[in-house]
């Protein structure tokens, strides 16, 4: 379309796009979205739809973890494929029987390595301070892109805080709550779960972290803390790690997690301190 023919009103404030990825200043045709913006949206929706169904390459992820010096185990939820996974969240929250025995065998091996008879370990005794669980969730792209680097950073932070780490567990077709079962079977005191968040139009690669103190099957979201939107254009690995360590150390001190544990960290996210961005709607002080 030539300029002369255009019925589109262009907005004078399109330079505000430098401040956000939101679809602002689209202009309008009548009062409706102009053609170019409409078609761009449709393309992004098509990409996000396709991303939901992309399978996670577990073998590649395990190789990356091994390179980072981390042991990992691969298990599966009770949802045996993606179609079932999308319709049965209850199955995605639980491990299948075979996976439970894989983890139980690993626990037995750990006990035997320490020369401890399993029967001697009290019901409340824990083998590890923290278990890290990685699940594909609704964006395998996010997990593939970010989880190895994020786990590697977390492992270092745990080590520096003197916390012991269980083998990393990768769950196929998993949902958030499956982490509680993994940690319960592993006899870990806390669980940190990394999950691919459902893809947005502009962010198909967003990773979430969920944290539970004293994890066990049957807990609800009220017992968990969440850190969302970890991706290059969102929260950095460093920021996410900082937030998690604050929550985790507080939880460890107070013996709880979830709604009773608030992120009261006085430490500002680095971006807030360094950013020149401010609310330009108000006059300068």
């Amino acid at each position, binding site marked *: 379309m030539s300029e002369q023919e255009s019925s589109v*009103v*262009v*907005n*004078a*404030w399109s330079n*505000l796009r*430098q*401040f*956000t*990825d*939101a*679809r*602002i200043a*689209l*202009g*309008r045709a*009548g*009062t*409706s*979205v102009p053609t170019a913006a409409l078609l761009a*949206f449709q393309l*992004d*929706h098509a990409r*996000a*739809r396709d991303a*939901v169904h992309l399978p996670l390459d577990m073998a590649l992820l395990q190789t990356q973890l091994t390179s980072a010096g981390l042991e990992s185990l691969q298990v599966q939820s009770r949802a045996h494929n993606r179609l079932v996974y*999308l*319709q*049965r*969240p*209850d199955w995605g929250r639980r491990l299948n029987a075979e996976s439970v025995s894989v983890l139980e065998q690993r626990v037995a091996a750990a006990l035997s390595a320490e020369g401890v008879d399993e029967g001697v370990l009290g019901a409340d005794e824990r083998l590890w301070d923290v278990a890290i669980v990685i699940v594909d969730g*609704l964006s395998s792209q996010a997990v593939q892109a970010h989880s190895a680097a994020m786990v590697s950073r977390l492992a270092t932070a745990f080590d520096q805080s003197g916390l012991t780490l269980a083998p990393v567990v990768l769950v196929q077709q998993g949902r958030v709550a499956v982490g509680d079962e993994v940690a319960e079977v592993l006899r870990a005191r806390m669980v940190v779960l990394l999950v691919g968040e*459902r*893809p*947005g*139009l*502009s*962010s198909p690669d967003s990773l979430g972290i969920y944290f539970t103190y004293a994890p066990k099957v049957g807990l*609800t*979201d*009220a017992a968990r803390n969440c*850190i*969302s*939107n970890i991706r290059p*254009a*969102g*929260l950095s690995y460093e920021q996410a790690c900082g937030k998690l360590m604050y929550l985790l150390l507080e939880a460890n001190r107070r013996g709880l997690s*979830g*709604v009773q544990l*608030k*992120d*009261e960290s*006085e430490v500002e996210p680095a*971006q807030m301190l360094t950013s020149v*961005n401010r*609310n*330009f*709607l*108000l*006059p300068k002080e």
Partner: protein
Amino acid sequence: MAYQLDLGSMRYRFADLRTLLAKATPLRSGDVLAGLAAENAQERAAAQWALADVPLKTFLHETVIGYEEDEVTRLIIDSHDAVAFARVAHLTVGGFRDWLLSDAADSHVLNALAPGLTPEMVAAVSKIMRVQDLILVARKCEVVTRFRNTIGLKGRMSTRLQPNHPTDDPSGVAATLLDGLLYGNGDAVIGINPATDNYQAVTRLMCMLDEVIQHYRIPTQSCVLTHVTTHIEAINRGAPVDLIFQSIAGTEAANASFGVSLSILQEAYEAGLSLKRGTIGENLMYFETGQGSALSANAHHGVDQQTCEVRAYAVARQFRPLLVNTVVGFIGPEYLYNGKQIIRAGLEDHFCGKLLGLPMGCDICYTNHAEADQDDMDMLLTQLGVAGINYIMGIPGSDDIMLNYQTTSFHDALYVRQVLGLRPAPEFESWLMRNGIFDDRGRLLSGGQLPAAFAHLQVQ
């Protein structure tokens, strides 16, 4: 008590009212997931027939979740207004549908009836109503609420301006906020979903929104959609809190999974009232709900998801909210599988909420793992506009870059206002005209230049 129906050679039997309600519900994936749905189309039709014969009075003595085990049931039974109910006390569910559609049930009569209805009565009648019935009856209801403006008047439709940003960056929030205002959005609330529950971040956003509203004298209210206990803490620390937000559900156990109870909500409501920040009214609670939340928390007690949803409205009603929003397509395909299920659920929620006297809005939305698209949203948007929805969401280009879902855009509000002749809240509309955003006939001015009130914002 069991219910049964003979149809031809088949005898259908339903063990109790809870089962009958579930089997009579139009098909949705969440009830299948819960194992509550009718086994086939004929069983569903039979259940609807049997349900139509149940007297409304039955719902007062046969509860779907026990009185002793659930505080929401206790709230429903204890707050029931028998005097208001008298007008329809003689009716069955089927007779109630006929009466609602008749001229006898006008706006005034429905308004007076609301406290006499229980969520289960309303859910029951909605299950035997078609889409056009849900629209026609809801359109007769008028639920008006006030804080700094008047929301829900006939012929008006408001919007929540939702300037979400993935890191709560002040300039990012401000850019979307300005875009929304310049497209005539934001009269229901300017409401941000914060990226974290961190006190500093939440309080900073509360202050920012308050300063913008005061500086430009915008007749609207702000809200940062954080947990209700964070609101209470923010109020204790002196933050400028207009509306208090909380997600709620229809059972005590589901609310517990959200970390709330009726007493916590009461504490928050009283804390909000103590600030006296409303200029023309005291409605200050903002609730969000959605079919499937109770099942998602494994707290549905064998009750179908639509009935659970309507029970959440009994919780909302207790606190005289400014806004109630059913976030209909956010929960995902395991509860509402596709566009057809989302559309019907949105219309049911709006109808049921309005009949119970609530200021219903709808987050007309879907996620990228649902079988739905923009065409489905256009259908629901248009139908809710006709049905008289109090407000919808407003997001730039339908894309929420923080919550990763698609909801209605600033442009969508202008579309539905244009085709249905709807206008913003009167106080906000006057502000739009005074500030050169709307012309004197309520149409958008050019957009090719910044209006005078914002001309100083030319950003380099």
